[in-house]
């Protein structure tokens, strides 16, 4: 059934959210609803076991640390919240604007996108590129997980049954070359075919840090170690894109083909690197 008279547990603050999570480790977390409600319609979720975080102000808010330049993004921040906040790097706002369309951006949350862990999650490669850290908490305390360690396998994340993602931390360096590109089925309301999140740090003409992350080309969003290794320690070499294919495992599905994804991924990485030069 798609409805149940059982109450939904709504958290008003962070403590309540964590207590509920502890009490109901098998409940579905309801954030913006843009994924959960689709699963519910499909009968894939039990409507009698829901923890609703929409009213939980302790999970919202975007704060910039004046001293460190770090930005803390509450997990319940919507894409619209990010698009409108001055502390959010432009590349992340661009990413937000590719999520669905205005109606989806107004409800869909950063936390939902990250924990839902779809291989095609729009923002996931960008968190990898930004070296984001995810702050997760339970009633016992909190810990931080690097984005690169978070998505372990197809829709499986490093989150214990009693934990919640409560914030995302990024440390933007505004001299880095940052890039986001989503190739979807159309220009809005699109599921991605290939997503690129990229960051290059260039010092004295040499690439000292390279993050090249792709989505929709593997069971999880992932960094491309061969491409990154081919970039670091020298001037920007667009030929590093030749290594894209070896790091990814795209599939054929109802939207596209493995061959298309590989070709597009290679080309958009190359074009980005060419533009950075």
């Amino acid at each position, binding site marked *: 059934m798609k409805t149940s008279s059982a109450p939904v547990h709504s958290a008003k603050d962070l403590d309540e959210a964590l207590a509920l999570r502890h009490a109901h480790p098998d409940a579905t977390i309801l954030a913006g609803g843009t994924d959960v409600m689709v699963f519910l319609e499909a009968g894939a979720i039990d409507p009698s076991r829901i923890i609703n975080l929409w009213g939980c102000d302790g999970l919202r808010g975007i704060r910039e640390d004046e001293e460190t330049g770090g930005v803390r993004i509450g997990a319940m921040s919507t894409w619209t919240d990010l698009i409108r906040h001055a502390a959010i790097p432009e590349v992340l706002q661009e990413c937000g604007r590719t999520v669905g*369309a205005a109606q989806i951006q107004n409800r869909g949350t950063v936390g939902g996108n990250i924990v839902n862990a779809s291989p095609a999650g729009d923002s996931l490669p960008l968190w990898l590129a930004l070296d984001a850290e995810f702050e997760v908490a339970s009633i016992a305390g909190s810990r931080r997980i690097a984005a690169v360690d978070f998505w372990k396998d197809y829709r499986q994340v490093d989150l214990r049954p009693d934990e919640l993602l409560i914030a995302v931390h990024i440390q933007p360096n505004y001299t880095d070359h940052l890039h986001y590109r989503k190739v979807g089925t159309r220009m809005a309301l699109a599921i991605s075919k290939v997503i690129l999140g990229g960051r290059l740090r260039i010092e004295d003409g040499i690439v000292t840090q390279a993050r090249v992350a792709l989505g929709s080309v593997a069971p999880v969003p992932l960094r491309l170690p061969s491409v990154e290794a081919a970039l670091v320690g020298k001037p920007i070499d667009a030929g590093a894109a030749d290594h894209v294919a070896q790091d990814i495992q795209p599939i054929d599905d109802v939207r596209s083909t493995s061959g298309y994804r590989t070709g597009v991924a290679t080309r*958009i990485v190359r074009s980005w690197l060419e533009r950075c030069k």
Partner: protein
Amino acid sequence: MGPVGENIPRTDGPAKVTGDALYVDDIRPAGCLYGATVRAKIAHGKLLGITKDPDFDWTDITVVTAEDIPGKNVVYLMTEDQPALVSEIIRHVTEPIALVAAPTRDRALEAAKHIQVETESLPAILDPAVAEGHTTKIFGEDNVFKRITIEKGDIAQDGEVIEGTYRVGHQEQLYIEPQGMLAVPRENGGLTIIGSMQCPFYIDKALASMLPDVDMNVVQATTGGGFGGKEEYPSMIAAHASLLALKTGKPVKLIYRRDEDLRCTTKRHPCTVKIRSMVDSNGKLTMWDAHILVDGGAYNTLTPVVLSRAVLHMTGPYACPNVRLDGVAVATHTPPNGAFRGFGAPQAMFAAERHMDRIARTLGIDPVRFRRMNILRDGDSTATGQVLTDTGAETVLDRCLSAAQSTMPPSQIHPGGGTGKYRRGQGLALVFHGCGFTGNGEAWLKGKVGMVLDGRCVRILTSSTELGQGTETTFCQIAAQELGIDVHRVTVDPHDTEKVPDSGPTVASRTCMVVGGVVQKAARALRAALQAETGSVADFDVLLQSRVSEAELRVQVEYVDDGSMDWDDATYQGDAYPTYGWSACLVDLDVDLDTGEVLYRRFVSATDVGKAIHPVIVEGQIEGGSLQGLGYATREEVVLDAHGCMRNDRLTNYIIPTALDSPEMVTEIVEIPYKGGPFGAKGIGEIPMDGPAPAVAQAIECAVGVVLDQLPMTPERVITAMENQ
């Protein structure tokens, strides 16, 4: 002066902007039940049994199977081949097998899941290329719904042949309102059917043999788009809702969910066209030999008529002395295909236009110049030997080109920037479209319109439905102009088969041109009746004032053929259509070299509409149809699984353009009046669908040099073509 030619506010505007307009799912009679459909999961097989899961609670559920059908198990359109519910043989995946009714939608869907269907699979034919004459029979003796051949001159000519093969896939109409019907038992017996539909009388006729003793009236609710998709399929849903309403004795509403609508309802016919042609040393066409294979799916529906229109448009708007146009429509074990705006012409003219490009490319001639050299002009004859007058090909071509030059500088058309590496392209297509039914269709149909003088107001009685295309407004304008009264005094009555005459179906670009003409005739008849009653000859309002009686005055007229068309349906020779519309369109686009995505920047069209009764409505039709054509060109693909079932059965995976995918449009209206249409109007509903896809193909060729002869030209296909260059 008068309202014709003026952009009066649409009569249906206020209800639609306030949310007051009632679509079928907005109507909820007391005690209404909800229906759901149990469907076949295989493409071809025997139905062995239907059982109810004993562990499910059936107390508030009613189940209907073929055994409950009182009359013939047939939903009738042209033939008696399509059952309402499978009785023995399954012929396509999703074919309806059983129905349930329940107090809520969720209960109905749950109950449907607990009906167990036992089947035995049989080999299925999914490929139309092997269907004809196959040992496995789907339809008739040879799986052929229809064959048509048209010949003119002699195609056995000397010279070099240029040949090409062109393929187009299914396309989904994607009306934003899913299909649905409501069947309500009447107090005096029988049923009222209310629903989303184009043709109320089609439903009436479709159910006559299935429910011979059930009196029914069919009423159109406000309908959220049709485009042909609600021409015949609603009869199936009406059949189902009726059976449930009769068995339960209660109102039953059957609204399709979007995924169900996508999987189960009719689509545009996929076609393969092969063309062989010759030109002389001056670049004039001397021979055109075209063959089309149309995939009709498992049942006849109206496939023979789609084949007819496709074959009749396979030359494109070009003159050629030696022509052979040959077509066959075959059956496959797939969900039946049906009407979709254009109805065979978009498929045929994609092929014709791409072939013209092929010839131009082979000969090294500019494709626009090549077209101009060969267009049909006054005095030329078509493949069926129809001698044309008032042709508009050159006029629309010139108008389109000059409109393209005079608006928007290239830098504004191609804004650049963004993350893409783009190549620009521009492409053009030239099309024509026969208006109204082929040949003597109208003479046979005799569409009727009634008109009532009700106090100082005039009410139009017609079965021609408003689907968004502005029929209601346009009819009021025509009647008001003819009578010389203010348009606000004219209204159109609700389309209830018990209360309005059969004007013919709302299809085939005939509603304004043909039925509008009958509306005009009805207005004249009403005035004549008033003149007769008052015994004087004067303007309508003067007569009204002098009128003594206050009784309603009612007239009904029908379409009468003027005998000017000479058409032989057996040989397909003569005047195929009373007139033709003409259109030229031009598209500016960018191809992203990294992704193969085609980004539309600007779309310019010039279309001859005869007379624009309401220019904004006409523009709206052209703009909407053009965007459907642009979607058909590059994004709209129906992906089938091994059973022939649509896999991408969600709006997230069947891709129609959003506002960010659609270009700015420049829409030029050309008026070459048609004497047979009200105030000169021709049909315009479908022609906008014909040109965009080949124009896009030419533009892609211009941008990146690849030749694509298959629709849709998805990014995957564009990239593959670029890689293979």
